[in-house]
């Protein structure tokens, strides 16, 4: 079996995304003697030097078609490259980019796929991969034995470590396999702003699905006001239209680093945690003692937020007078 691991480098707007360095670290730790970073871009010149220390080789696949992300040319080039190099595994980020590409790539390669990997070790044949289920309440261990195996790696899960491999940069030409796409990238847009910037707040109250109904929102609003906090939310609250997208905390929302974050009725799915784990102090109120939020919170309260918050407001009022 080949001992080389291929890592697909992800970049956006001219910058390599952190997850690429996380995957390169994970690949090195798999004991692979040969870590090949695959960089597909309009031109590799700007990005390749940043990656070279982290890999044994940087395979540069360049051309105008790789300027913007579009899974189709990426996939076709990777299929051709994998057929030539026969890597043991291809690591791809479990990101919006990777999720568009990973499953169809695995089918095209006739490979086994494990998505959202949080741990990965080499097994006698193939890999042993752990991943979350039920929004983090369970972990599942999978064996994947195909060659190559496609492993989609959770973002912000592996710690990126510095390296000095001084990888060689090799240009590789995808040829005409990348033509004739049925999909076309048109543009990148930013979510419109309404003027609330949760990233600048020092105290943030986050409200989750535990709030249950729109009519309970004033409770959260008034509590936030009491303590001079900005009110933010997990995704379901925003999806329901109770707060604007701009105050969503998490991987598809904003990343906040306040002095104090109070999470009310939020389970702590990793997509939420990705946006708030940098808070200095985290207080979580959740009626489920096993809610994953308690593994990142500094203080935990297992109870009904609809009882705790009114009682808390009373205590605060008493303290103020």
């Amino acid at each position, binding site marked *: 079996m080949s001992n080389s691991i291929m890592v697909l480098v992800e970049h*956006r707007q001219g910058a390599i995304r952190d997850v690429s360095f996380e995957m390169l670290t994970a690949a090195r730790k798999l004991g692979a003697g040969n870590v090949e970073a695959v960089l597909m871009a309009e031109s590799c010149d700007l990005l390749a030097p940043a990656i070279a220390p982290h890999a044994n080789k940087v395979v540069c696949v360049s051309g105008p078609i790789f300027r913007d992300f*579009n*899974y*189709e040319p990426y996939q076709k080039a990777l299929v051709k490259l994998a057929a030539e190099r026969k890597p043991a595994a291809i690591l791809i980020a479990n*990101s*919006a980019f990777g999720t*568009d590409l990973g*499953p*169809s790539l*695995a*089918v095209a390669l006739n490979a*086994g*796929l494990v*998505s*959202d990997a949080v741990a990965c070790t080499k097994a006698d044949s193939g890999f042993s991969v752990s991943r979350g*289920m*039920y929004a983090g*309440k*369970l*972990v*599942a*261990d*999978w064996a994947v*034995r195909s060659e190559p195996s496609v492993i989609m790696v959770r973002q912000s899960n592996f710690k990126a470590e510095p390296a000095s491999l001084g990888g060689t940069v090799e240009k590789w030409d995808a040829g005409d396999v990348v033509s004739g796409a049925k*999909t*076309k*990238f*048109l*543009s*990148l*847009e*930013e*979510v419109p702003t309404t003027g609330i910037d949760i990233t600048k707040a020092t105290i943030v109250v986050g409200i989750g699905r535990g709030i249950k109904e729109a009519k309970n929102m004033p409770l959260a609003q008034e509590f936030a006001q009491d*303590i001079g906090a900005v009110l933010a939310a997990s*995704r379901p609250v925003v999806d329901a239209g109770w707060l604007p*997208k701009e105050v969503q905390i998490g*991987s*598809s*929302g*904003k990343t906040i680093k306040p*002095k*104090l974050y109070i999470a009310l009725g939020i389970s702590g799915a990793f997509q939420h945690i990705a946006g708030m784990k940098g808070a200095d*102090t985290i207080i979580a109120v959740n009626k*489920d003692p*096993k809610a994953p939020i*308690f*593994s*990142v*919170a*500094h*203080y*935990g*309260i297992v*109870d009904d937020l609809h009882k*705790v918050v009114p*009682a808390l407001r*009373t*205590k605060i009022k008493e*303290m*103020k007078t």
Partner: protein
Amino acid sequence: MEASVEIAVCLKRVPDTAEADVKVDASGKDIVRDKLAFTINEADNYALEEALLAKEKHNANVTLVSVGAKESEEVLRMGLAKGATAAARIDSAGLGETDGIGIARVLAGWFQGKTFDLIVTGAIASDDGNSQVGPALAELLGLPHAAYVTKLDIQAGTATVKRELEGGFLEVKELATPCVVTIQTGGNAPRYASIMGIKRAGAKPIEQAAPAKAESKTQLIKVYVPEIVGAAQMVEGTVDEKALKIAQLLKEKGAV
């Protein structure tokens, strides 16, 4: 667009575990399901809504399909009650252990020989969190796809989509139809079924199909409850005592 736009929606019935105690069963590979409530997968609900909106706009037919046991007909009936045209269940009995790509293979088998302009699925299943089925199905059918779509607009021959990226970015893309699109939550407001709709849905036939073979290249070894790392300091007591402790904490941190 001409009258006969055909849309298929893939639906999954899942346990609602957000507030439930999730326990591993004797096999060590699955959870104890008997005390859980089941529902339509959250993202699928948005996918269904997207199809129903397209139905209204383009006078489309909306066909639902689910891989599952008899009980998954509940979610098909729910979809029919909301206005879908037809429904099919591919029986999961005898399927054995499989993975996301395996389910995509089963679905691809059912889609073989049928023509749809658009196939929609949820972007992710709330139970396994795989995010695999839609794009894998597209590849098996030789169709283009887009994952994590929050906005979808179909015209003759093309679909324009907005895909949600990290950090508040959206990617605008154009796909040739037929295509497969996986829908992320939040892009629409899923409707409720009317009483009339529910009544009518009860009488509609549901096509029964047997699964195509779905060999998988991965194997589930075991599932388990993760160890809580860096656990929070828990505040104990009555509601009042807890409230007092948090109030003191807030004061310490300068919030009061």
